[in-house]
């Protein structure tokens, strides 16, 4: 029983990373129609930025949690303004290839500058050790990762449901063309939304910094899982991205615990199952002809 609770917590903590990053991916896809392959690289940039800032200016983890996403927002804005924007009118494949190439460049630049064997990151005080709740020892960091990603997802949810900007983003995510035809200049929201999506990936990266290997390649595997998450949740569905993020985290943890040989396959089996029975994903809508 205690082991099961721990696996669940571990699953939710890992799911938190997926949910945050997938949320960014979903918003970008929704509003821009861009499948941002560089999302994994931006997650990596978030972790690397946290490590470099700690090393160079001694920036504390808690501060980095605020500062790094802002930096990544700027990176996202630059990416959108200088590159992505020019391909928006073309087949979405072009932007997929652009962001794919961009992620290769980012990974190689980081490799060149910071090497391949990874950057050190000191464990932030307060997140070490265990929380004891009755007989149960839960890892402080996992409890934090879990609660923090819930919190951020909740805040983003409030932003999306309680503000006019959120309403426009939801509408554009559902159907950007129709939203334009209703008098809304969707183009004006494209840049900030792209930046916001990238910032979320960066935030997930900072959260990963203390407890995962900070290497240039850390996003390469992550982004593949992330695509599984958005496919399961429904491409372009914001709620779907969050729910599927946590779901994939849980499935991964239970898979590792109870069927280790299939741990990695299990996510993609889930994805295949969802695609088979609900091609548009758990929360996606079927395209009407």
């Amino acid at each position, binding site marked *: 029983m205690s082991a099961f609770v721990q696996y669940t917590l571990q699953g939710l903590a890992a799911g938190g990373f997926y949910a945050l990053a997938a949320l960014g991916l979903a918003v970008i896809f929704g509003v821009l129609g861009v499948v941002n392959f560089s999302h994994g690289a931006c997650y990596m940039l978030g972790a690397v930025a946290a490590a470099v800032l700690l090393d160079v200016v001694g920036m504390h983890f808690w501060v980095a949690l605020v500062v790094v996403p802002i930096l990544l927002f700027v990176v996202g804005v630059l990416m959108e303004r200088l590159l992505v924007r020019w391909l928006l009118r073309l087949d979405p494949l072009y932007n997929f290839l652009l962001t794919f190439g961009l992620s290769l460049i980012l990974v190689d630049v980081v490799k060149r500058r910071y090497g391949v064997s990874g950057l050190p990151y000191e464990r932030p005080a307060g997140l070490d050790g265990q929380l004891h709740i009755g007989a149960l020892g839960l890892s402080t960091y996992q409890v934090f990762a879990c609660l923090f990603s819930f919190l951020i997802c909740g805040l983003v949810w409030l932003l999306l449901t309680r503000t006019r900007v959120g309403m426009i983003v*939801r*509408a554009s*995510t559902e*159907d950007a*063309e*129709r939203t*334009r*035809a*209703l008098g809304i200049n969707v183009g004006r929201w494209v840049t900030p939304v792209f930046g916001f999506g990238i910032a979320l990936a960066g935030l997930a990266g900072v959260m990963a910094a203390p407890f995962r290997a900070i290497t240039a390649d850390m996003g390469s595997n992550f982004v593949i899982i992330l695509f599984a998450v958005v496919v399961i949740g429904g491409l372009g569905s914001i709620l779907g991205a969050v729910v599927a993020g946590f779901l994939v985290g849980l499935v991964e943890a239970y898979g590792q615990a109870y069927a280790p040989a299939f741990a990695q396959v299990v996510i993609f089996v889930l994805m295949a199952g969802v695609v088979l029975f609900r091609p548009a994903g758990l929360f996606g809508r079927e395209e009407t002809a």
Partner: protein
Amino acid sequence: MLENRVLEIDGLSAWYGEARVLTDVSLSVHEGEVVTLVGRNGAGKTTLLRSVMGLHRQIEGTVRFAGTELGRRSPDARARAGLGWVPDDRGIYASLTVSENLLLPPVVHPDGWSLEQVYQAFPVLADRRSSMGTQLSGGEQQMLAIARVLRMGSRLLLLDEPSEGLAPVIVQRIGAIIREIKAAGVAVLLVEQNVKFAATVADRHYLLAQGRVVESLDNDSFQARESELLTYLGM
């Protein structure tokens, strides 16, 4: 006559890649007038509305709205200028509530209805204001889609098959709404296959076949030739 033309389309042709779907279409809609565009499936009716909205851009010819040539203006600029589009799938947002669906578009003209007016005219929308958009029935969604552009204060409504798939009693209600709109001085360009319904609401009719305007009729001669037109449309 010229100055009260809200919409004037002149020599409009449209393509999908190599395929030409509209050929040299010219038509006009006057202020406070309801005009229908009648034709079979695939005659190019929806493409024409999309071209007017700026959503279909592979076109030649001119579209003038309220005396201004629209040229390459973006769809959102056209909507803000006073074009109100009600797409054939009604375009209700599933992730927005009924009231959010109403509040999403900007108010572009002082004559736009207030939320209270909308709820007065469509009590069913008031009752379900917190429901998600697509939880409404087909008829309710159609009313919501029309109410949405009325709230904007659009000067010309582009209605794409509003009667499609609705029960007769609801179709009647939609007809009544269109007449109210007309009474309020708003022009309507209505795409329809339902000839009987078209005859109850419109002043004039254009017949579209294979991407060309083949006839232009006033409502009297339209009604007189109703059975012929029904055969022509294959209904």
